[in-house]
């Protein structure tokens, strides 16, 4: 085995995290090596930024400093897949797509479908990434049953376990989900799996505008239908369609698709998903936002977006992605936040062109628990060396 010190190299522009070039890059291949590297960084007071597939680096603001970039793609082992228990243990650097392929051979899946190419499990957890099927399977907090982390001082700690039902001790997996590397390094993950549904049926309904999606998604949610996803896909030009996905046994998806057409008052049935299903909207010139709100407020929330905003909404869940034209973003974002606040709405910047990024408040208001979050950060990372400044309130 290669000593971890042999993987050290100077950081270059290609290694930059939000424009911050790391002094040094290291690529450990075991949990012990991660601990060794982080312990050494602690001894010298160096800042550490963990990365995986680098597919969501813009989802958090740039770190204030990055002495050491911890490349976790070398932790790429699927440690244990017990098909009979519907569980899998896999290291943080395993790509989500590779894990899906492996458990797929046993007719199983991990119920997470964020669209970012090359995403690793550690990155999916740390960014709390999800996709359309969150309606059916939930998100990381519902599926992650165990976690191993390396803390700022190099301590290796576990929480949870390998069984789905387990209430022993605090659930640190929840705490590290969406923490963007600011509490420590996620090195291994244990998941609950689901069986792959044997059949699929898709209903696509063209809509006159995005406002029509709100009442339809509420109607679907209040019906006895059990779609895996209800997606509103709206282009910048205002054309919109609702895509409802059913996944189950053949008899069930056929019956449910028919019932959905009746409920929606129309729609085309098909076998295949549209190509843009689950994609984040917009392009590199847009500011990509994640909006979260009380689910029935969909129409009101979308109505607060500037004209020309492309949207991909997980319609029945209270989460939407919106691509606001960059020129309007700085002015539109505070207005949008104020407009959706009555719906418990929040808007987080996931990606922005460099020219506008610094003018945007990345996370927006956090509420009255920010001080408690600060106290959590101070306990886990008292010297503030783990991805400093990347989180809410500058944590």
């Amino acid at each position, binding site marked *: 085995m290669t000593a971890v010190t042999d993987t050290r190299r100077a950081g270059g522009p290609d290694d930059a995290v939000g424009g911050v070039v790391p002094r040094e890059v290291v690529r450990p291949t075991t949990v012990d090596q991660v601990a060794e590297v982080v312990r050494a960084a602690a001894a010298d007071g160096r800042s550490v930024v963990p990365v995986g597939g680098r597919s969501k680096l813009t989802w958090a603001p740039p770190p204030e400093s990055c002495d050491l970039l911890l490349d976790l793609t070398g932790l790429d082992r699927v440690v244990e897949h017990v098909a009979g228990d519907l569980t899998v243990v896999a290291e943080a650097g395993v790509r989500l797509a590779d894990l899906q392929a492996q458990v797929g051979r046993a007719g199983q899946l991990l119920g997470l479908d964020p669209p970012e190419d090359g995403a690793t499990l550690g990155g999916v957890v740390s960014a709390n990434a999800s996709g359309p099927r969150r309606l059916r399977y939930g998100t990381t907090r519902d599926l992650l049953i165990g976690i191993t982390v390396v803390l700022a001082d190099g301590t290796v700690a576990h929480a949870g376990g390998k*069984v789905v039902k387990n209430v022993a001790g605090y659930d640190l997996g929840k*705490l590290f989900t969406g923490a963007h590397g600011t509490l420590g390094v996620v090195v291994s993950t244990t998941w609950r799996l689901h069986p792959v549904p044997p059949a699929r049926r898709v209903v696509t309904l063209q809509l006159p505008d995005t406002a029509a999606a709100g009442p339809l998604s509420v109607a679907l949610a209040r019906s006895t239908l059990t779609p895996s996803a209800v997606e509103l896909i709206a282009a910048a030009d205002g054309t919109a369609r609702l895509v409802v996905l059913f996944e189950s046994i053949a008899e069930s998806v056929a019956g449910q698709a028919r019932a959905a057409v009746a409920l929606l008052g129309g729609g085309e049935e098909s076998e295949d998903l549209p190509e843009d299903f689950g994609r984040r909207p917009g392009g590199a010139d847009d500011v990509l936002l994640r909006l979260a709100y009380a689910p029935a407020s969909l129409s009101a929330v979308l109505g607060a977006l500037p004209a020309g905003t492309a949207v991909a909404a997980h319609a029945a869940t209270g989460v939407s992605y919106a691509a606001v034209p960059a020129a309007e973003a700085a002015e539109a974002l505070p207005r949008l936040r104020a407009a959706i606040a009555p719906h418990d709405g929040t808007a987080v910047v996931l990606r922005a062109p460099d020219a506008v990024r610094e003018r945007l408040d990345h996370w927006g208001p956090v509420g009255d628990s920010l001080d408690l979050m600060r106290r959590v950060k101070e306990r886990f990372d008292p010297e503030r060396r783990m991805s400093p400044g990347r989180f809410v309130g500058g944590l």
Partner: protein
Amino acid sequence: MTAIAEPVLSDRTTALAERLRTAVGTERVLTDRAQVRTYECDGLANFKVTPAIVVLAESRQHVVDTVRLCSEAGVPFVARGSGTGLSGGALPSADGVLLVLSRLRKLSPVDADNRQVTVEPGVINLWVTRDAAPHDLAYAPDPSSQLVCSIGGNVAENAGGAHCLKYGFTVNHVLGAEVVLPDGEVVHLGGRAPEHPGYDLLGAFIGSEGTLGVATELTLRLIRVPEAVQTMLVGYSSVEDAAGTVSDIIAAGILPAAVEMMDALAIEAAEAAVSCGYPEGAVAVLVIELDGPQVEVEAQFRQVEEIARARNAFEIRIAADDAERALMWKGRKSAFAAVGRISPSYFVQDGVIPRTKLPEVLAEIERMADERGLRVANVFHAGDGNLHPLVLFDDAVEGQAHEAEELAGAILELCITSGGSITGEHGVGQEKRMKMGKQFTPEDLDTMQLLRCAFDPDGVANPGKVFPTPRLCGERPGVRKGEHPVQAAGLGEVF
């Protein structure tokens, strides 16, 4: 093994009681021995501690005042809902305050379009589904005690239930919480919307067994009542065949709403108690429930029936209506209490194993029981490997209680070595804290303490529960450095 601690009416608690009376009203503060003794234990009756003071809170402000006054006085407090917990999580502190939340019982109107409802912590679990039912909605977590247990207690313990195989646990169904932190500060975690920016402190709070604060309001997610529900009761001549059926159902890609198993002794007890009419001569029974769209349930139900027959089921009964379904469930849900019919005393255990290890673990439990000349009745959530072995004993027989306690402990260790957990839904509480060191490393436990110290640096919220050794938090990092005075005095270990 019954531990009784006398209350400590120190100068400190006497002074605190006076301040509490001023703050929340004399009639809500109890110190009379006879009155406070009512609260000496929760559902785990073999631990008893009489609290110095009991506060019967009726509003959020009462909770805030009580917690703040406790914090200022450095007096520990323990929050309690209906007191049905089975791990001693609501066991009082002898020199502390027991904060009773069962009078906080308001339910807001159901928000049907958002499929949510906001409730106070003393609200009974079943009331939520009762209020949601007219909207064709339901609250999914359904612990067997749901007729009496409170939502606040469910949140503290991350309660499960028979249907969490498909629907998940309390943590999957709580969207937001208003929490009084151990210093009296009020914070809102989560809310009516998902993905609130920041750390998922709500996820960390749920299941923290009252050690991180007191919830005063909870926003719950409701599920749509499924179109169809079908339930079957299946009788087997061997435990292996019953366990094999469960594995085959999962392997077939079917996710039932519930799969419950009882062994011969548990069946005998249930029969004696509630005459549930389970198949005669069965060595094991399964209660299998499927729910969802009608066509899906019907097709998968037929498939499950075939699987059960292939595994030598000698009797399969299908519930024709809700009344028959209720009877099938009655035997299962009353099983704990029913064991009292066939044994003078018993311990209820709660452990988890990977489902695939079910047959070997059950055989080992039987061997361990035989070795000690004791009987174990097994009732469990077979779908997710959550065992509830009931260790039967007779208090009148010298030393048998001790033997039974040892066996219950040995079963937990078997769960750990099988790759499972010491608790699936009852919590660690007072009862299992000494087992935590067997499931987790010292580093794991120290890391959990970092979270506790962020919420409760002074250690006043339900101290002495969950963790094996009481620890001090030290100064708040970044604020002040130096040795903690208690550490300097050699009285404790600091983080």
